[in-house]
């Protein structure tokens, strides 16, 4: 634990430009997939496919661009808590609509 107010990163890491470009291309491809899925009639599955693709994109951004992959486990726990809380909020809100 730092005591002087400064946070010296205990996990130094360098991500090369090649990786960033690859992730960027992957994000572009997934965006194209979102557009493509929206154009095909998958019925009720369309929404879930869109959410799945969006989640994959968010995971890439969080892990690589925001460096969470290289950081302490505590930050991963924090993000998990925030996402799970949001998920629970969605479930409780939409449960009202389902049972109404």
């Amino acid at each position: 634990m730092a005591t002087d107010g400064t946070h010296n990163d205990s996990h130094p890491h360098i991500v090369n430009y090649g990786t960033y470009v690859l992730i960027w291309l992957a994000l572009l491809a997934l965006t194209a997939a979102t557009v493509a899925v929206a154009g095909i009639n998958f019925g009720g599955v369309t929404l879930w496919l869109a959410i799945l693709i969006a989640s994959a994109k968010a995971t890439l951004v969080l892990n690589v661009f925001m460096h969470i992959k290289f950081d302490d486990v505590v930050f991963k726990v924090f993000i998990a808590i925030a996402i799970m809380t949001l998920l629970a909020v969605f479930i409780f809100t939409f449960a009202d609509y389902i049972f109404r």
Partner: protein
Amino acid sequence: MADHVIHGNYVDFYDEKGPRKGILAWILSTDHKRIGLMYLIALTTFFCIGATIGVLMRLEMLGQGRTIMGPQTYNSLFTLHGLIMIFLFVIPGIPAVFGNFFLPIMLGAKDVAFPRLNLLSWWLYITGGIFAVLSLFLAGGPIDTGWTFYVPYSLRTGTDVSWMILAAFILGFSSILTGLNFITTIHRMRAPGMGWFKMPLFAWSIYATAWIQLIATPIVGITLALVAIERIFGVGLFDPTLGGDPILYQHMFWIYSHPAVYIMILPAMGVVSEIIPTFAHRTIFGYKAIAISSLAIAFVGYFVWGHHMFVSGMSDTSRWIFSLFTFLVAIPSAVKVFNWTATLYKGSIDLKAPLLFVLAFIFVFSIGGLSGLVVGALATDVHLTDTYFVVAHFHFVVFGGTGFIFFAALHYWFPKMFGKLYNDNVAKVAISMITLGFLMLYFTFFILGYQGMPRRYYDYLPQYHWEHVFATVGSWVMISGFIVMFVNLFIAFRKGPRAGMNPWGGMTLEWTVPSPPPMENFEEIPVITHGPYDYHAQQEAEQKQEEFNQSAEDEK
């Protein structure tokens, strides 16, 4: 403070010479203590405005029909009273003032983790406050929706809702950034040796609160932004005439605004956990239970928002789920109350003003909490929704809880913040008047509500007359108590005797630094070897010292 000069061999933070002078040395300062004091001035000002509006509302209710104002003015006043008290006083409340001033000191740190961000939070708060005040003078007049901005009325009223929403939106950012700052401070800035379970309980409560600020506040920001968008563009999200769902708005509003009640009350509970051991001179009973119950309240409290909507047309299944969670949140709250009273048991109690405030708090908060179960139960809630009973419950919890403890904290830490002592007897008289007036005012509301008096009406039926008169007289007693309290503190601030380092015999780190503290709090960062309320260790050390002195004298 003008008369603060160099005391002994240190310079207190008031007199520390910085690069700026005059008011700029304050409003551009990144020192957590100065920021805390700036919040104190702003919050106290808004509290006085909110309280004045409250007294005016009570004056209107003194007699039947129009007494001093018409219905539209009354609608605007109860909206402003709620908005000012909630968004500008109780939500920032204890964390912004006492969290800023004392959290770093209690952790053994020189400042918060992000001092500049801290100053930005204060500026955002002030900007939000200015927007809120400005909205009163714009075309359309002061808003009349109630502090909850319920749709569809907030979409249709001619008053200026969008400005007030913008104000609340900006205030939300201030809250989020403060929460972020405190979480990082607690994780990164604790003194060496201060493990999680050696932290003061105030820090634990601020930690739980900061998480709610961080996770819940963005939701109200988005919700209010959607109302503004709906008003301007007529999108049809919430307006039933455009295919929208007003109950969705209520869900989204309360997803934040119920946890916001815990943003208000958790820090107050933390202050109580500081004051009781200090004035009982006893180690707190059940430290871990109190610490973990803060997190449990924060967690369970996140999932009870639906109890505000039992009669709104929500599904039956949701109703009983939210009712169940509401009852569950009473458990960690009760854990705290039992631990506080157990700490007092067999303690060496010194009934000074801060403890008297805390005892009044335990009394009124218990009534407030238990009345919450009455409205948390589905069957009774149908009868009591939108009556004075709910107003009474809310004021017992938020005013009797957060409000009382805000002023308890001010009395507890006043000597440390200003280096002066106040008159304890006058403070006790003030507290007694406040509590008596409070009970006359709000306990009467319970009876009125139970008898069917609806909230937010500027008029009433003849059978409620004498209760309303009694409640209004109570508001005068309470306000008189506050005037006595503020005058007493102001006299102490100007002419009070100088306070020592530790006037109450407290054990946490703020009592180990001079009053008022120096600029960077500590000459050397302390090393923590025992828990925050270890009176046993202190007594043993004192006993050993006495034995040592005795044996040294005997040898002579």
